């Protein structure tokens, strides 16, 4: 599953990352998987919001391959 990252997360992990997640797993599970794979980004992941199709979603949201999950760290403002 391909995940898009922004800001400090993109800096720490890369702007796009592939995660080998089961189909229909939750946002929280994907967040944990990423944090385990990239411990240097765990704190930033914890305070990031998940976004699917321009909509913010909670940790319980089920995701599959085609959803286009993104993690957005707190914004800096302009």
């Amino acid at each position, binding site marked *: 599953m391909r995940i898009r990252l922004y*800001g400090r997360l993109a800096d720490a992990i890369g702007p796009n990352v592939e995660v080998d997640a089961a189909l229909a797993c939750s946002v929280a599970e994907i967040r944990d998987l990423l944090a385990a794979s990239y411990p240097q980004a765990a704190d930033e992941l914890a305070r990031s919001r998940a976004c699917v199709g321009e909509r913010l979603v909670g940790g319980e949201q089920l995701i599959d391959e085609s959803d286009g999950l993104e993690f957005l760290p707190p914004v*800096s403002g302009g």
Partner: protein
Amino acid sequence: MSVVALLEHDALDPQLELAELTEAARGDGAIVTFVGLARPESREGNAVDAIVLDHHPTLTRQSLEDIAVACAERFDVSHIRVVHRCGMVPAGEPIVFTGASSIHRRAAFDAADYLMDRLKTEAVFWKREVGDDGAQWIEPTEADLADRDRWG
């Protein structure tokens, strides 16, 4: 009434933006504008060559529009214009233009103030200062948040 909110990938020309707003504001009595520049020095006093603003392909422009629309609804203004740079902005160059026109000046002053307080804290950007010491991510300061909270 018009509300314009643009995400600018290339150089921002404040004179051009003011001309557009002035053209729209025929019949008004006041225009208030603000131009933000990329600072050549960080809060810690280090030299900054450029500010780099990462953006989201849709949410960033939407955040600019949401703030501009909220401003238009809140104040007795006729026209709002917000233009914000993204990408790499060399130190000293314009990074944001905000402008409001109104029949009487107070609403335009308040609207410009409100626009910047919200843009500085809520616009969907991830911003870093780049200089000889590398890159430093920036987040809103306590003062920025306090300024925004004045508006409730």
